[in-house]
């Protein structure tokens, strides 16, 4: 009688253990699937933001060149450009974005200086 009870308990335990393992495996599989999907999404977002960043940087460079051709350039610009290139090389997108924003602000201000200078010329040299 005792033996039968032991055997039954052992069977129940084995069954329970098997169920738990199955649950764990399922959870693990689900977790890894989720992680995989999330990694894909991050990579995609990172790729998009890097492309966007490079586009904005190219826009800033164009404005900076335009302003320089019109005689307006700042001393810190070359240094910023160097730093942003380095940040992109090191894959430090946060830093690269911060520097690109700073460059865009500089570029806008330089174009503004050039525009004001041209407006001055138009006002004062029309005779």
């Amino acid at each position, binding site marked *: 009688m005792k033996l039968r009870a032991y055997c039954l308990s052992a069977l129940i335990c084995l069954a329970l253990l098997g169920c738990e393992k199955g649950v764990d495996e399922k959870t693990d599989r689900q977790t890894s699937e989720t992680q995989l999907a999330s990694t894909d999404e991050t990579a995609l977002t990172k790729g998009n933001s890097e492309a966007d960043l490079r586009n904005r940087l190219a826009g800033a460079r164009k404005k900076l060149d335009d302003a320089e051709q019109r005689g*307006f350039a700042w*001393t810190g610009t070359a240094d910023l450009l160097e730093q942003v290139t380095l940040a992109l090389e090191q894959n430090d997108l946060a830093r690269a974005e911060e520097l690109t924003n700073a460059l865009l602000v500089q570029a806008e*201000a330089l174009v503004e*200086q050039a525009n004001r*200078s041209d407006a001055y*010329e138009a006002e*004062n040299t029309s005779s």
Partner: protein
Amino acid sequence: MRSSALSLCGFILSLGFGFGLQSFSVLAEQGDKVSPEESMSTASNVFSKQVDRDVEAFQKFFIKRFPRVEFSDYQNGVYALDQASREQWLEIEEFPPYEFDIDHGKSLFDTPFANGKTYADCFENGGLGIRQNYPLFNEELGEVITLELAINRCRQQHGESPLPYKKGDLAAISAYMASTSTGQIFNTLVDSEAAYKAYNQGKKFFYSKRGQLNFSCSDCHMQVSGLKLRADVLGPSLGQVTGFPVFRSKWTELGTLHRRYAGCNANVRAKPFAAQSLEYRNLEYFQSVMSRGLEVNGPSSRK
């Protein structure tokens, strides 16, 4: 009745047309009588008059701002405004730090090039007493020529290599030439359309805000001239060019005006232009025109 009215109208019209034609022919005849030289002269007068008005307004600004300063004193820069600095400067001028540079400049000026020619062969009056004539607008080249540029062009013309523009031998030669012109009056002219264009480029540079600090030359050297920037009093732009090249205590050596321009631009965090770039030459031209009536007093010493 109607036919007589029509014929009267026709008569009046033909009379008017005939008179109109006659007037036109008179004008054309008058037009033919104006020679190209006269026409050029009239055009140059227009530019000269505009520039004269600018000079008057510019100089009046300072005369009104600093009523106690003698006009002739503007050639001394900030020392015309700040008594304490003036006293120190006068003491420095008792043993001028640029004297050795004048001597060195004279020896370079007199040393013949490899082809036997000297600087004296390139300039009117042997290069002596002519500082006040520079910068000038060269009509053939269509650009402003400064004294330093003329010195280097003279070297190149005689097969020598050009000297660096900011300091050293070129500054010394320029200092010697300026020293032979002491007391001569600046009367820089703008008498052609091309010259007027260059003048306006210089004027535009002078009034354009630059750099991360967003300052124009005029902001510091007109609007707040005489006030302090930290411990230093800002000098008036009137007369700024007359004393160059200068021996600056900060540099501990002689330097040219374009070296100073570059320093000024860098101070407002603007990328400086190269010495003798068109931008700086036009600016020097504009500033020299504005300083009409002041004497050459270079070389001189500055803080």
